[in-house]
């Protein structure tokens, strides 16, 4: 068959019932791309000799090198059968787990799928996944059992054995389909039950009917299964280029043997045998030990062919077979030393795989016009929204979907499932094409002119007129410049949207709405009736208007330009990169709903931090990451608060591809990827009651340890007093103020409450700030109620003697004024306005007074909570209670204390208060003058050698908090992921092993109803999650796939500063306690990263150093 012309395809695109949109799905390495090759070859796009070797649709270099497909790509094929011409839009998809997002994008655009299964390996994990994906998208699958040649050549099965093997595979596939079906039925059943129950309770009493039938009996599932006699199974060997369905053989033998083909169709697969004497087809081949019909009539022929061509190389027999089959084999192939060449030459004529597959596809898979109402509703109802709840106008569009008409009046509905990057060189506009006669002539003329000019210029250069020289040079420069800009243009990546038309005709130059995934069609109702994208409209969130720039026919690596694309076709749309991020819906009707988001089987979990090799190339990296994000449906990119650029991918292979893409296409710079920074939190806990060996602490005698004593001494510097209850008292350097602070652990619930109500706290903070300036901030009633509720909750959680009245005494929250730590005012005789003043606006209690430098104490607290003493990470769940705060406030005292000459000399100025003088002296004058607000003095702000007093107080408060923190048992808190793992029963043990190795903890495990899958819920420290997904996949051969979501912070139970102190602990851990301490490990890693001091010996054992220098 010759190359199909573009015109032909355009003509075919208009015949919707003759279009088939399908994708090829399978486990990795089951031969999807090879099969696609065979189908492509049938259209003469590639040579049939190269089919299976070229992997035409794997256009990326790394795809070819690795031998796996990494993206879905489409190609349009033409196929004629029985006088009908079909257009087949074929999408090849990747099989590797990491790229299952690409599968999702492919499946969405199709109406049918070819599921390929390896005849040797059978059903693999990814096969199950793709079957599920097809099921979820409501598309109809057909089965191709591929690589049958391996049964013959590698496994050396007899035809009888192969038959049973194939049967088994078919059973496996059907089992998967069956379980999908049952789980769906059970789900529906559960829903119904829930509804029934609610209605039951409404009815009150009544006859309770217990129905124990699972509902499976009532639902018909027979049309779901694969069976050769239904014609939805093809047996093939794509690499050798052959494939057949029972149908073909039935036709063949009905002519030969005179049995009706319908009878043969029914009996060719199954437990039937041919009774030659009775000339009857009988049932029960197995029990009678006879060859089943399938073996006798089909497999045996193929087996003998392989035997003759590959195994024995019997030339005569081959020739005989060839003539009996009526084939023509070129003598070149006959003489070829590789028997495979001959084999494929014969087979591809005898049983061409493309013929078998494509005819099955045309017959069994639906055309775009046959889209089911159920699927339309599913596509249109976003998220949990029911179809019925959509606006009326939107519901009307359902008809347009079902009609699938290419009329002028039909609304255009297009779904874009992904964006892919194309080199601008590959775009048809930029493609080099042969020049026409006139153009050549024109160019010649131009060249001649240029030459003449140059000569003229040379002549004038010889003459002394210097001014003339400039012109050609200038021109050269401008030309060079224009060349440069042209080159830059060329390097730009172009994005093409991978899309399908569901209704109407999409034309070049048409004005359309681009609807983002979060677009809400009910917003469109506000727009004027009958408006179109061409009108000027008010902006609606997630909606944009644009003109269709260019339309392409996707032909694998090539793109062909089109002017219009009628309904039901897969296409590429150019020039959409500014409007579409990853996926979108395009329509002429604003009431069109965005399609449901794609079902991604794999969520991105592998996180890495990427950095450019050359730091100056940062902007390029950011630009590249943006492009990558657009081009990849599954990758996520973000900049973290720490300044890291993080790339999140679905797996290691995906990561590798993303990095390659960044390096070579999008950023074009060298980059390096590293482990991302892991956040921690610091906290204090109540003194533990038991020690590391679970012995009661109080009863034991502590063994005196020398170095312990030494440590105690170095812990607190001079001027810090710590009493036995953990109260830390600290004085500012100028000895003017003393603060006493105690750290108390907050109950876990309180911490969580504070974390959940950050916004409320922020509002309260703002209110206090305004109140400070005697202004009021209006907070709406709803928020006030929420704050009230929050306060009540806090009170109920802070019970007990220790916390009496604590909620009222809250001074501030931190860090950043809204964090999960509390500053408590326990200073006797100091009443300051509470943080809850927004609630008490009406009552207006006695005016509480704010002391001077109140703010400094709060700032000190903010600083202390922002970075803790363990490894400078933020604190969490700590309450600092300020118990004493003494100030020596009188001005003369201050000056005695801080013997500051400046303030002494400034003394005279206090009286005359010379405003205009802005010499240094005025500092002191203002310092000793009273501060307006309180009317108290402000001696503190005197300038002494320690800097401004407010600063000193901040520092003192911060230090006091830190020491108070250190006086309590300190702990690190680790960020935790919740991890949901789906695994089959046989790999359960390995999943547990990986989890426990990485400090994970299993929370629950349950079996999914109707399947043999277990769902395991576990928590895992973020610090241990690097490479976790990959490890678990490797260890379970891909049968378990984890999903990680950040959940909460958890205290690491081990003490990072722990050393054995009791007899038992010595026995257990030895004196040095060198067994690994998880908390210490984390803490030191963070400290080392931050360049903080790490208590580590440079050399562990002094005696074990290399003692000889090199030259001795």
């Amino acid at each position, binding site marked *: 068959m010759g190359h199909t012309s573009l015109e032909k395809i355009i003509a075919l695109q208009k015949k919707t019932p003759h279009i088939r949109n399908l994708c090829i799905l399978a486990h990795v390495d089951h031969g999807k791309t090879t099969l696609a090759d065979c189908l492509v070859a049938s259209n003469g796009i590639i040579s049939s000799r190269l089919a299976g070797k070229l992997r035409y649709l794997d256009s990326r270099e790394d795809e070819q090198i690795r031998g796996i497909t990494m993206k879905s790509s489409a190609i349009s094929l033409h196929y004629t059968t029985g006088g009908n011409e079909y257009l087949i839009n074929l999408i090849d998809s990747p099989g590797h787990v990491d790229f299952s997002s690409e599968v999702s994008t492919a499946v969405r655009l199709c109406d049918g799928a070819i599921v390929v299964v390896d005849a040797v390996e059978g059903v693999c994990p990814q096969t199950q996944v793709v079957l599920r994906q097809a099921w979820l998208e409501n598309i109809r699958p057909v089965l191709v059992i591929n690589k049958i040649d391996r049964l013959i050549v590698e496994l050396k099965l007899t035809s009888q054995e192969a038959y049973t093997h194939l049967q088994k595979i078919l059973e496996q596939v059907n089992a998967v389909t069956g379980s999908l079906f049952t789980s769906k039925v059970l789900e529906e059943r559960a829903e119904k039950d829930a509804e029934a129950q609610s209605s039951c309770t409404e009815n009150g009493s009544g006859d309770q009917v217990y129905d124990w039938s699972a509902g499976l009996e009532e639902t018909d599932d027979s049309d779901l299964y694969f069976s050769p006699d239904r014609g939805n199974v093809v047996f093939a060997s794509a690499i050798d280029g052959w494939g057949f369905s029972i149908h073909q053989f039935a036709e063949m033998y009905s002519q030969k043997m005179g049995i009706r083909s319908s009878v043969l169709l029914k009996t060719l697969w199954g437990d039937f045998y041919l009774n030659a004497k009775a000339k009857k087809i009988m049932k029960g081949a197995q029990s009678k030990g006879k060859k089943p019909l399938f073996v006798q009539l089909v497999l045996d022929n193929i087996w003998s062919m392989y035997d003759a061509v590959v195994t024995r190389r019997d030339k005569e027999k081959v020739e005989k077979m060839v003539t009996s089959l009526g084939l023509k084999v070129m003598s070149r192939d006959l003489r070829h030393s590789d028997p495979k060449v001959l084999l494929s030459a014969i087979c591809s004529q005898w049983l061409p795989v493309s013929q078998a597959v494509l005819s099955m596809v045309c017959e069994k898979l639906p055309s775009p016009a046959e889209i089911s109402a159920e699927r339309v509703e599913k596509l249109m109802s976003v998220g949990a929204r029911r179809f019925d709840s959509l606006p009326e106008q939107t519901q009307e569009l359902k008809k347009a979907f079902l009609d699938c008409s290419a009329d002028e009046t039909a609304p255009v509905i297009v779904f874009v499932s992904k964006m892919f990057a194309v080199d601008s060189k590959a775009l048809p506009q930029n493609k080099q094409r042969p020049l026409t006669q006139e153009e050549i002539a024109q160019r010649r003329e131009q060249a001649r002119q240029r030459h003449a000019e140059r000569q003229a210029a040379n002549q004038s250069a010889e003459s002394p007129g210097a001014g003339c020289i400039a012109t050609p040079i200038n021109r050269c420069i401008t030309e060079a410049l224009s060349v440069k800009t042209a080159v830059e243009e060329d390097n730009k990546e172009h994005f093409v949207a991978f899309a399908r038309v569901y209704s109407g005709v999409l034309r070049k130059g048409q004005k359309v709405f681009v609807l983002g995934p979060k677009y809400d069609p009910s917003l469109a109702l506000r727009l004027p009736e009958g408006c179109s994208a061409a009108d000027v409209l008010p902006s609606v969130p997630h909606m944009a208007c644009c003109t269709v720039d260019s339309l392409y026919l996707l032909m694998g690596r090539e793109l062909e330009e089109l002017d219009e694309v009628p309904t039901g076709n897969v296409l590429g749309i150019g020039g959409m990169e500014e409007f579409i991020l990853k996926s979108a819906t395009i329509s002429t009707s604003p009431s069109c709903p965005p399609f449901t988001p794609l079902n991604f089987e794999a969520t991105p979990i592998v996180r890495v*931090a990427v*950095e450019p090799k*050359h*730091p*100056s190339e*940062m*902007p390029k990296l*950011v630009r590249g*990451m*943006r492009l990558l*994000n657009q081009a990849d449906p599954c990758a*996520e*990119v*973000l*900049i973290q*608060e*720490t*300044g*890291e650029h993080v790339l999140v991918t679905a797996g290691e292979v995906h990561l590798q591809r993303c990095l390659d893409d960044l390096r070579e296409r999008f950023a074009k710079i060298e980059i390096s990827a*590293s482990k991302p920074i892991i956040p921690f939190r610091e906290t204090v806990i109540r003194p533990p009651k038991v020690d590391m060996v679970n012995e009661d602490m109080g009863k034991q005698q502590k063994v005196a340890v*020398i170095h312990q004593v030494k*440590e105690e001494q*170095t812990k607190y510097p001079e001027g810090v007093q710590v009493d036995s209850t953990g109260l830390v008292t600290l004085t500012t350097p100028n000895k003017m103020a003393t603060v006493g602070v105690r750290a108390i652990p907050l109950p876990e619930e309180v911490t969580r409450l504070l974390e959940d109500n950050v916004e409320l706290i922020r509002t309260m903070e703002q209110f206090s700030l305004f109140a400070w*300036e005697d202004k009021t901030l209006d907070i709406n009633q709803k928020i006030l109620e929420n704050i009230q509720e929050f306060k009540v909750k806090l009170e109920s959680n802070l019970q007990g003697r220790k916390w009496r009245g604590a909620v009222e005494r809250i001074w501030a929250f931190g860090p*950043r004024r809204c964090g999960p730590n509390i500053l408590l005012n326990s200073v006797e005789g100091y009443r300051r306005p509470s943080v809850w003043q927004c609630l008490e606006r009406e009552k207006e209690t006695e005016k509480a007074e704010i002391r001077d430098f109140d*703010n400094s104490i709060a*700032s000190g607290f903010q*600083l202390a909570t922002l970075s803790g003493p363990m490894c400078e990470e933020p604190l969490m769940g700590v309450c600092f209670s300020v118990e004493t705060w003494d100030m020596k406030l009188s001005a003369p005292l201050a000056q005695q204390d801080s013997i500051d000459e400046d303030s002494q000399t400034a003394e005279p100025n206090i009286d005359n208060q010379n405003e205009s003088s*802005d010499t240094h002296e*005025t*500092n002191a*004058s*203002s*310092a000793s*003058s*009273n*501060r*307006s607000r309180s009317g108290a003095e*402000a001696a503190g*702000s005197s*300038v002494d050698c320690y*800097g*401004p007093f407010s600063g000193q107080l901040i520092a003192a408060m911060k230090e006091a908090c830190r020491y108070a923190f250190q006086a309590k048992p300190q702990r690190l808190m680790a960020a935790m992921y919740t991890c949901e793992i789906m695994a089959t029963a046989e790999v359960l043990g390995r999943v547990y092993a990986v989890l426990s190795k990485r400090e994970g903890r299993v929370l629950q495990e349950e079996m999914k109803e109707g399947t043999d899958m277990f769902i395991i819920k576990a928590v895992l420290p973020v610090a241990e999650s690097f490479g976790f997904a990959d490890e678990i996949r490797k260890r379970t051969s891909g049968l378990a796939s984890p999903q990680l979501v950040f959940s909460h912070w958890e205290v690491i139970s081990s003490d990072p500063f722990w050393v054995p102190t009791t007899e038992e602990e010595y026995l257990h851990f030895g004196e040095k306690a060198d067994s690994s301490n998880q908390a210490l490990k984390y803490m030191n890693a963070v400290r080392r*990263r*931050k*360049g*903080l*001091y790490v*208590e*580590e*010996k*440079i*050399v562990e*054992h*002094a005696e074990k*150093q290399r*003692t*000889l*220098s090199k030259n*001795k």
Partner: protein
Amino acid sequence: MSIFTPTNQIRLTNVAVVRMKKAGKRFEIACYKNKVMSWRSGAEKDLDEVLQTHTVFVNVSKGQVAKRDDLSSAFGTEDLTEACTQILAKGELQVSDRERQSQLEHMFRDIATIVAEKCVNPETKRPYTVILIERVIKQLQQSIQIQRAHMRLRFVLPARDGKRLKEKLRPLIKTVENEDFTEQLEMVCLIDPGCFRDIDELIRCETKGKGTLEVLSLKDVEEGDEKLE
């Protein structure tokens, strides 16, 4: 006195000598290499891992032991271990190779961390990572855009002083984010942290304590993660 010949010569290869001059005498102790710093920082707690022998020498390489009398006059004790710890703590030492290396590394890290902490990328207002800063420092010919993270201040000035002060403050302020001049002048602005004291002083002096100054944030950086889209 022993005679030094190649045969009875003992090479001290794993030895770091710590010297101290006290009471006009020179004292030395023999320690293991790369251990003295650990001892001083408190990481090493076992004295035997630091000292080769609990002996105080006059000259380690010659093996001359210090006299008991000199010891007691210098250290006030005859306990050798006590004398050793004193010398260890205060004596001058030859820094060993790996000690020096780790010191340098530590210093370098420190510098990079401080830079990373205090500075931001002026375009994105986000900090650079320490690793990136380190790399830039190492390859000096490279350059990145860097800016001291600004401090966000808010000050309220009485209307009387507002106008006058504003002119004085102008050169110190980088950007004014918010300005409200009704009854009093209220400004939210970004400044270079280096100017903080100047501004603080200026406001306090000029308004005679009537103006208030508040630090809203020590460094103005973008908070939260940003998704690139």
